[in-house]
């Protein structure tokens, strides 16, 4: 799979800018203000100005779960699997972490470690379930995963309004705030947690190494490229598929932990933030390459955080951010597809052209 060249980047970016301007003019606003607000609302304007570290901290802490989920998705995509169950895996990670945060009392470092481990296990099991449905039940992973997403969402809401309801009032706004000892340590006055950043970078590095230098990664890729041939040459394909789902689920589950104990500090109904689906877009744009996940998911986190201000400040629907993300990925895919098509045509014409 070829990587990006400069020309392949110019097209998607200009399409995004053009469609953003078009949509905003259509909505009857000056296009510059919302775009500036997206940057200002996520990293400050001018960017990274001193004294605005809280904003940057929020954006980085949105980046962490997206990056973790993207790292996991690279594994399942390489194994040829569409892990749409990623949302449910993030959610089950958050629920498992919330359980530990609420029920276990231990010194802070130990408790934080336990919440992270619990999140990993929660996501892993939920991912494994998608894998088992696929390998043993013959249920396509897209539908198994999607169904389990719904189950996870309902389960969260159930926990919040009944067994884990806030003391006094049961409401869908979330559980009680977790005890301090369970929260991921962060820099003062911000959500920015060096520990969370380190985990995300480690995950991306780990996935990079997995597919660059290990036999396991190579076999996973073989399974993804051709399931049947891999089976015929003796690779236990089902075990590899389950492995991919478990790795992805565990990373997504840690992302869920970070959402619960590092961003919202409690369990809320929309705990995944939709970051699982967003991560699928990130990985498609990154063309399944671990390194590219770092900048692309940061850019997506910026759009997600920045556009959430649009409703309040400019009375524009915050879905604008999602539209721009979608246009970006779609135009990048079409751009690359078109370039490949042209290259093939030219090759055919040069070689005298057999009919096509």
């Amino acid at each position, binding site marked *: 799979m070829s990587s990006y060249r400069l020309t392949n980047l110019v097209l998607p970016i200009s399409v995004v800018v053009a469609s953003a301007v078009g949509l905003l003019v259509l909505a009857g606003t000056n296009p510059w203000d919302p775009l500036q607000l997206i940057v200002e609302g996520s990293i400050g304007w001018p960017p990274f100005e001193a004294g605005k570290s809280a904003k940057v901290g929020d954006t980085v802490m949105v980046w962490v779960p997206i990056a973790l989920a993207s790292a996991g998705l690279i594994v399942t995509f390489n194994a040829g699997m569409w892990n749409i169950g990623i949302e449910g895996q993030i959610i089950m990670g958050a629920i498992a972490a919330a359980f530990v945060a609420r029920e276990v009392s231990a010194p802070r470092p130990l408790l934080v470690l336990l919440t992270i481990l619990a999140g990993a296990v929660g996501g892993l099991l939920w991912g494994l379930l998608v894998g088992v449905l696929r390998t043993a039940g013959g249920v396509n992973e897209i539908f*198994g995963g999607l169904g389990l997403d719904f189950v996870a969402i309902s*389960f969260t809401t159930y926990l919040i309004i009944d067994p884990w309801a806030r003391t006094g009032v049961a409401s869908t706004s979330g559980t009680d705030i977790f005890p301090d000892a369970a929260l991921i340590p962060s820099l003062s006055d911000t959500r920015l947690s060096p520990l969370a950043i380190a985990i995300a970078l480690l995950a991306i590095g780990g996935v990079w190494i997995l597919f660059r230098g290990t036999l396991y990664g190579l076999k996973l890729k073989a399974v993804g490229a051709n399931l049947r041939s891999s089976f015929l040459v003796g690779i236990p394909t089902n075990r590899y598929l389950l492995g991919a789902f478990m790795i992805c689920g565990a990373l997504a589950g840690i992302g869920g932990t970070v959402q619960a104990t590092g961003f919202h500090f409690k369990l809320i109904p929309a705990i995944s933030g939709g970051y699982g689906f967003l991560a699928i877009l990130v990985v498609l744009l990154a063309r399944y390459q671990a390194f590219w996940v770092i900048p692309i998911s940061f850019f997506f986190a910026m759009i997600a955080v920045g556009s959430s201000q649009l409703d309040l400040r400019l009375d524009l629907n915050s879905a604008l951010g*999602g539209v721009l993300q979608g246009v970006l990925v779609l135009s990048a895919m079409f751009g690359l597809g078109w370039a490949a098509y042209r290259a093939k045509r030219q090759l055919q014409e040069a070689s005298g052209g057999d*009919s096509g």
Partner: protein
Amino acid sequence: MFDTATIASIVAGSSALMFATMGETINEKAGVINLSVDGSMMLAALAGFVIAFQTDIVWLGFPAAAAVGMSVALLIAFASIKLSLNQVAVGFVLFALCTQLSRFLGANYVGRRPVGVPTWEIPGLSSIPFFGPVFFDHNLVVYLSYLTVIATFLFMYRTRKGLELQGIGERPEAAHSRGIPVNKLRYFYTALGGALIGIGGAAFSLDVKLGWSDRLTRNLGWIVLAIVIFGGWHPLRAAFGVLLFGALQAYAINLVPEFPSLSQVLPSIPFPAMILALVIVNWKRLLKWLDRYPFLRAILRSDPPTAIGTRFKVN
């Protein structure tokens, strides 16, 4: 609890899913997966709503919605056939894009109400006991949804063109060698399927749940994709799946007063139930046992078109 009125409301409420399920069945039968349904249906629902609201003519909403669904489907066909891109990937991105686009463009229409589809009981038929109120006391959109199911079935299994449609999804090479223009027909059936998905969207926003709200049709599209599999790519069985889903949903909502703490959980029961159904129709050992009973096997099996999701290139 399943009295005549409830059953009638299940039938009336299923029209949106019926259109969209037939659409997706048609394009998957031709070998093209349109994974964008959840998004394209939503954007089409908005388009239909806006046109009907602005013109005050409800029927104009349907062609507008069909055009939106068709455009999205054609993008997927073009990406797959011409540019050799992955259908599932393009479909997923279009799902995300259309969903967000419907939210952004629809923000100013939330809560507005257009004229709805007028009720029209079919004289004579509607006075048949039970069947009358259940099937013939609704409106034109609901009746058209029955006709679409019947027409899809008859076309697929009783006409030569329908045989060609099955051929390009099952054995595109063989179809090609018999002079059938595989890719041209795939464009056509994907567009047709997309148009029906769009009409399904409009049936929802203009009839089933008149009005517009943020993510009005959310998750319906995913249900459509699951029902197509459950339906074994057969229009009549898929239609049965739609009604079963409606019944399950009505049943779950009915249980809420008895289990108030599960009020958030019960409405989502059809989703895990759908997984269970997929497990059953894919259960190898069960299917092996069923092989001895061809009739049961024919009822329960769910074999996808052989060439589904693959590209066809002439060499």
